């Protein structure tokens, strides 16, 4: 595949050139633990089966093609040739079964020569700015594409050096994207066959800001709904249970705590909790205790035995020493509801959710009313609200890096466009390829069978034909 060297030079100069050295770091890119670092570390802490799924499931397209073809070549023929349900003669079934490996070999060939190169052409086109802005990935090029650029421009680089360069370029392009949104409220795009760049219009940028705010609003509204309809009722139900069954709950939990503390390892704790769970199942009035036991079991999933002991003890102590005494003194359900709703944490959380929804709605309205408000302004206003804020602004902390969120929204929008395009164009190419692959199979398959299995295709090999002639000569029927 051709890779445009000019494009690399653009990246290269931005990434490593004088510009970079002179650039003032106006944007604060918090290093430490990034989301992807956290993801990697989470995977390291997961049990082996999940790590294996994570590793095997992220395989390449080529691997899928190979597995599919191996299945077609070696599995399918078995079920055709040795099919106990079929009444067709064995030779015909064997003859038909051989169509599968031939078709698998051709599928690998067709996919290798057409599907994969076609996919690569599309990837190169979106990364080099061949398409319109809606399919232009030049502001956040793919890792594979950057790797190819680096390799093409620096064939002398070792594998490690290539990886370092790719990682640097990726980091740099991400910072450039956020900086561009923050400082100029636009995104700069490159285009194929020209060194000129263009910038996304302010109208387009307005759409990205609106879409980002709408996403935040949707997530906060859902969270509020969950809070009102699930979390608060759940807390009320549990508190009411403590009020009505204080002594049983206390006895059950303290006994459980003693048993758990005697257990020497996680396996033993698991056994205790499983037996408790079994004894509680089916008893409607002990539903809350069952939930507590299940929550305690969740604490065994990660970490060592000491961690499990600490976590279980902390939770049981909190319930027995704080929650149960607090609710058992109340005399009615109404009092429980008022206590739960009057809880400081609950009030703070609700106020935070309400506040976030109100503020985000405010920004949205301003943008929809065509007010010229940049991403940086929204970010600054969010930060100011947090700085001066009360409970109403507690949830806004999640959105203080607003420009970063706009950049993410921009990326996901372009990715979605490309995904849709690839789906349709891929379907089109596959459909157009069908007559070719079909013709190819029909051409190759009988010829392959004639050559390799002449008895099955009722054709005699040339040496067998000679035998007939020799036999005939001996009988004196053919004279030279």
């Amino acid at each position: 595949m051709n890779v445009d060297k000019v494009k690399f030079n653009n990246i290269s100069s931005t990434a490593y050139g004088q510009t970079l050295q002179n650039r003032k770091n106006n944007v604060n890119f918090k290093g430490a633990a990034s989301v992807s670092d956290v993801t990697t570390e989470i995977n390291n802490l997961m049990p082996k089966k999940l790590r294996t799924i994570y590793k095997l499931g992220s395989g390449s397209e080529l691997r899928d093609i190979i597995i599919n073809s191996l299945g077609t070549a070696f599995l399918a023929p078995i079920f055709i040739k040795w099919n106990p349900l079929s009444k067709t003669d064995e030779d015909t079934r064997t003859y038909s079964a051989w169509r599968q490996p031939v078709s698998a070999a051709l599928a690998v060939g067709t996919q290798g020569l057409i599907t994969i190169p076609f996919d690569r052409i599309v990837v190169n086109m979106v990364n080099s700015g061949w398409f319109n802005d809606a399919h232009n990935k030049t502001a956040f090029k793919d890792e594979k594409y950057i790797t190819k650029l680096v390799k093409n421009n620096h064939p002398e680089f070792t594998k490690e050096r290539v990886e370092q360069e790719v990682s640097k370029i990726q980091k740099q392009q991400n910072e450039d994207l956020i900086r561009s949104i923050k400082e100029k409220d636009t995104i700069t795009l490159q285009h194929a066959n020209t060194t000129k760049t263009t910038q996304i219009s302010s109208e387009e940028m307005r759409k990205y800001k609106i879409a980002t705010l709408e996403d935040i609003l949707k997530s906060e509204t859902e969270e509020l709904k969950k809070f009102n309809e699930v979390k608060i009722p759940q807390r009320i139900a549990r508190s009411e249970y403590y009020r009505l069954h204080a002594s049983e709950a206390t006895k059950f939990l303290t006994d459980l705590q003693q048993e758990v503390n005697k257990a020497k390892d996680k396996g033993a704790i698991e056994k205790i909790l499983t037996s408790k769970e079994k004894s509680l199942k089916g008893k409607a009035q002990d539903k809350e205790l069952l939930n507590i036991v299940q929550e305690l079991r969740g604490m065994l999933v990660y970490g060592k035995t000491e961690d499990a002991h600490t976590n279980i003890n902390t939770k049981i102590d909190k319930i027995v020493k704080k929650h149960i005494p607090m609710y058992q003194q109340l005399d009615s359900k109404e009092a429980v509801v008022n206590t739960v709703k009057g809880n400081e944490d609950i009030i703070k959380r609700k106020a935070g959710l309400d506040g976030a929804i109100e503020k985000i709605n405010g920004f949205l309205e301003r943008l929809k009313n065509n007010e010229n408000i940049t991403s940086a302004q929204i970010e600054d206003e969010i930060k100011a609200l947090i700085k001066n804020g009360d409970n109403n602004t507690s949830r806004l902390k999640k959105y203080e890096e607003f420009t970063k969120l706009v950049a993410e929204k921009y990326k996901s929008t372009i990715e979605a466009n490309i995904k849709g395009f690839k789906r349709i164009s891929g379907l089109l190419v596959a459909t157009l390829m069908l007559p070719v692959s079909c013709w190819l199979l029909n051409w190759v398959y009988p010829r392959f069978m004639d050559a390799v299995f002449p008895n099955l295709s009722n054709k005699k090999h040339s040496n067998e034909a000679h035998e007939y002639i020799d036999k005939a000569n001996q009988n004196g029927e053919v004279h030279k």
Partner: protein
Amino acid sequence: MSIKPVTRKVVDYAIRKPLKALSETKFLQHVEKQYRKDNVKFISGIGVTSIVLKDGFGCYLYVKQSLNNEKIPEDKRKFVAALDLANGGLMIATQLLMHFTISNKKVQTWMFEKLYGKYFTRPATKSLQALLAKNDKLGPISGDNFHKGLKKYKKDIINAFGCLTSLVAASVFAKRVVVPFIATPLADKTKAWMSRNDKPAVTHKDTKNTYDTEEKDIIKPEAETNQANNKDTNLPNKMKQNK
């Protein structure tokens, strides 16, 4: 002129420009809008259309070409075509079934939750967060970053799980084991239906018949047939016989 610029021009005009034009069509814009909205129904509809269109068209082509392929021995041609038809039909049915079951994102998520949901419950993730906080390698991790990381991990692993289950259950087991297993006996019936107006089938004499015990008309090989005919026409033999 070197070959590279020429190849580039050919690729530009034959592939890149048509693709660019395709990307700007109203239809594509509509499709992309649905992808942006993550409209599950629409995306699923495209998947179904793709299966029916591609496999249906493919099946038609394979059957038609097999039936008309004179290079395939006549006594096997109809079975090959019948197997193509049965295989194609079953493949569409299986792919649709898989599309709505094991390859379906919702079903995959449900299966994942059933099998590994315990690793992602609130108490479990709380202890995971506590463990991660002890990790010196990463330094301090904000609660927000932990939840984002966990959300990404869960999404990635459900995707990985989906890829594996689809590959093993749909691509290997269903398409390469179940379909041929059912398609082969079904092809017997399809072949019989295709041959309903034909004269009684003749089987080549070399063909082994291991299941059907009914006697078939067997074509004698050409050499034998000629020999038999020669009985009357071979002059020296005739003279011997007359003697």
